[in-house]
């Protein structure tokens, strides 16, 4: 008994950041129910996030610890994704407090839902057990459905319903796959046990096992918007409030890739059977995303397709299945966090002001708000992969990983896609700098939005010029992660 409580205590100690986040989320929820002023919930949210950051800093990050009797694992890889999740939630919270599309319906529980998403994202990256993986995904999904509907207008509700239906279907498929896996491996659920069981399978059994693996991967492919499970993305991104779109475009993508790494790690004997599929889907995902983005006129839809394209680049690191690939993916994820959320911060500011989500809203932004135009231009050029910005460093590593693995086709496809993507990223810059504004008055976004853009812009430039610290950390993580 005492041993058990000792283990539990140790688990709670290492899991303190998530614990703080969960308890904090509930506290924010309660506060918003009783306090009249929304400021109370906002202040509380920031206290929770600060506490989470401090405890995350204090948690040892070098070794791998199995917690809660093997349900979750805390290792250097999980550490990266915990910081990413915290970063997403913090930046999105900055945007959410001042986004007008939810101002009508402003409630403190909006922020508390973001905190819950944060817990789910962290759990997804830490899951070491099929059931835990499923629960973490559901936690992220259910809260996301509610968040998408938060504008409480017809478009937002439609998006949420669509997301719910697609999401429920893919969860069901995933669960079915898990149950098949459970049966075929003789009852293995924890990832280490699963790996051992799959390793013992005969050749025929391994081939039969492709079906459940494919089903499980389908559920994750839905989360990360991998083609052909991406159809929901543009509609949901368009309908959701902008900060929620921002969160969806980064958070679940990062966590989904983390879980994909863990599950394929557990099913590593199966990898040769599924690798060609991933290889093809990587190319299809980035091509479809980038080509479809070319013709978009709504900025949220454009960024939705751009997200699909970016997921394609990220999948390069996963598809080549080497530690350099994983390193490239992690670097690109950090880059993507800053450059994409920076772009979204600017979208929030512009769309709030114009009450319009078309690209036209960005016309002449350089005249109305030079700082904002510059910030967005930096983020977009980084997304396009121009040096010396951080997106370039990430892309460079990913291309290098593809060539290192002798996947020349993958590298060439990525390069061609970068050229296509350039068109629509530069088109926004063209709108901002080369066209005359529709309205002359200056843009005065709220302070919190300015902080969000400032942080993202500085990180995009700073990490691009001086990436060595980031690279040192992430290459250590990637080397320690035995796929």
């Amino acid at each position, binding site marked *: 008994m005492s041993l058990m409580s000792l283990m539990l205590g140790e688990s709670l100690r290492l899991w303190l950041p998530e614990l703080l986040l969960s308890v904090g989320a509930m506290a924010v929820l309660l506060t918003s129910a009783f306090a009249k002023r929304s400021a109370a919930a906002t202040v509380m949210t920031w206290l929770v996030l600060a506490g989470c950051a401090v405890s995350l800093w204090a948690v040892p990050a070098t070794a791998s610890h199995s917690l809660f009797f093997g349900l979750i694992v805390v290792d250097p890889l999980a550490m990266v994704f915990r910081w990413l999740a915290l970063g997403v939630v913090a930046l999105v919270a900055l945007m959410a407090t001042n986004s007008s599309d939810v101002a009508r319906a402003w409630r403190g529980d909006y922020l508390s839902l973001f905190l819950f998403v944060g817990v789910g994202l962290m759990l997804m990256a830490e899951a070491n057990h099929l059931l835990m993986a499923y629960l973490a995904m559901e936690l992220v999904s259910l809260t996301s459905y509610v968040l998408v509907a938060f504008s409480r207008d017809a478009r937002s509700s439609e998006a949420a319903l669509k997301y719910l239906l697609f999401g429920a279907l893919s969860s069901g498929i995933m669960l079915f796959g898990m149950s098949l896996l459970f049966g075929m491996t003789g009852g293995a659920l924890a990832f280490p046990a699963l790996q051992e069981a799959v390793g013992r399978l005969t050749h025929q059994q391994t081939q039969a096992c492709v079906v459940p693996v494919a089903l499980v991967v389908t559920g994750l492919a839905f989360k990360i918007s991998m083609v052909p499970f991406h159809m929901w993305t543009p509609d949901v991104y368009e309908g959701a409030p902008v900060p929620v779109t921002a969160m969806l475009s980064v958070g679940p993508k990062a966590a989904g890739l983390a879980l994909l790494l863990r599950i394929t790690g557990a099913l590593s004997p199966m990898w040769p059977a599924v690798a060609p599929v991933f290889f093809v889907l990587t190319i299809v995902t980035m091509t479809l995303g980038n080509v479809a983005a070319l013709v978009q006129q709504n900025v949220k839809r454009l960024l939705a397709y751009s997200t699909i394209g970016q997921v394609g680049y990220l999948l390069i690191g996963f598809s080549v299945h080497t530690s350099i690939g994983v390193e490239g993916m992690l670097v690109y994820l950090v880059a993507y966090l800053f450059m994409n959320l920076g772009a979204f911060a600017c979208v929030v500011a512009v769309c709030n002001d114009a009450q319009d989500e078309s690209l036209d809203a960005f016309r002449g932004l350089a005249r109305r708000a030079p700082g904002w135009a510059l910030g967005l231009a930096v983020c977009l*050029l980084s997304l396009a992969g*121009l*040096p*010396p910005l951080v997106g370039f*460093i990430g892309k*460079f590593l990913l*291309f*290098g990983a593809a*060539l*290192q693995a002798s996947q020349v086709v993958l*590298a*060439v496809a990525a*390069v*061609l896609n*970068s*050229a296509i993507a*350039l*068109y629509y990223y*530069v088109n926004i810059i*063209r709108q901002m*700098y*080369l*066209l005359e504004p529709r309205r002359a008055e200056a843009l005065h976004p709220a302070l919190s939005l300015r902080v969000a853009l400032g942080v993202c812009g500085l990180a995009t430039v700073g990490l691009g010029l001086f*990436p*060595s610290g980031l*690279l*040192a950390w992430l*290459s250590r993580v990637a080397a320690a992660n035995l796929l």
Partner: protein
Amino acid sequence: MVLSGFLIIPLVGMVVILLLPKRAVSSIRMAALLATTLVLVRSLHLLLAFQPQTGLLQFEERVSWIPQLRVFYHLGVDGLSIAMVVLTALLAFLACLASWSIAERQKEYFILYLLLEIGMLGTFLAQDLFLFYVFWEIVLVPMYFLIGIWGGGRREYSAFKFFVYTLAGSLAMLLGIVALYVQTQTFDIPELAKLAPSFAPGLQHLLFLAFFFGFAIKVPIVPFHTWLPDAHVDAPTPISVLLAGVLLKMGGYGFFRISYPLFPEGAQWFAGAMAWLGMINIVYGAFVAMAQTDFKRLVAYSSVSHMGFVLLGLASLTPTGMNGALLQMFNHGTITAGLFLLVGVLYDRTHTRDLTAFGGLGVRLPVYAGVLTFFSLAALGLPGLSGFVSEFLSFVGTFGVWRWQTGISVLGIVVTAGYMLMVLQRVLLGPLNEQWKALPDITHRELTTLVPLLVIILAVGIWPLAVLHLQDPSIQALVRHMFVP
């Protein structure tokens, strides 16, 4: 720190202008002019301190930048780049003077202008492939805005086309850089020049092609040239000067600095194609230029034709031809820069570039007429002026190797003489168009931008060794390096 100064001075200038208020237009101009002047003075110091006879890399600086990727901040200058550095510093200074005519958003203009100067100088100074790529791409961004905001005509379209074309080319180059890094784990250009030539021929051919696309679009090599007339025509005058004078040279320089020393096998494999492409550039460019009625467009196409001599010289793989090619880059930079400035002078006064709208200006603007005649004759390759020397060297060096291509290219010279004389006739001779009766002659400031170029063209024409002795040892070393058994 000798070379870093070239990058730091414009950077400081940028920060100073950033801190100045928007209204203080004259202070902004002076700050930019001061920065470009200091860079020019520094480049002349460099020229004096440079020791050409060694043929080695000099004034090297090497500091670790991204240790995980073995990226170094590595600068250096040798005979291949010294003339380009001086040319860039000179044209950036002259075009800065010519930027006085920019009438709006001066603060943003000069910040971007100095950023452009950093990118151009950095490209010629970098000795690390990663750093080279960073500077190469940095050039694109300010150029896009400079054409798109301060240009004329279909400026948005032209700026966009320029950006997308060149970036598509550089992405091919990026793939080559990544492949090289994966093979050798280094970005250091001198080190790569030792390692890469031992690659299997097939790989060398592929890598040569990857870099070729990047450089071909910049040069530009027909059929990748279609961005050039649009961008040159719609850019404001000082930016056209830099586009034609410096940016095109970046492409040619890439062959000298990267393609040839790193992939000698690829270069030999491609030399025949290069000779054909050079020939096409020379002849096609000249014929298309002849058909133009827009003065600026004509000069733009003449650039396509003149850059063909660079390709022809490169194709020879002989010291004579390659000396001609490198010298042609320098000469074309000075001559075309002058022609664009002269087009700008006329356009500022008449607001038209239509050649048929002029006539008889020789009487009204005698000084302008003299200068225009001088630059036109330089462009058509009059002996005694600089263009003749480099074109002649290219021909001599290449004729023994690619007889047919060189022979046909001579046709280009004839056509060039045709359209250049036609320009003189249409603008300066004939009856005076009454519309331009009161046109003032060229001003002192405008003349200041042209006289240095004029002196250089004459000096190099009479005593070409002044430039050749700078570059020849490095070219000899390069050719020896390429034919090591």
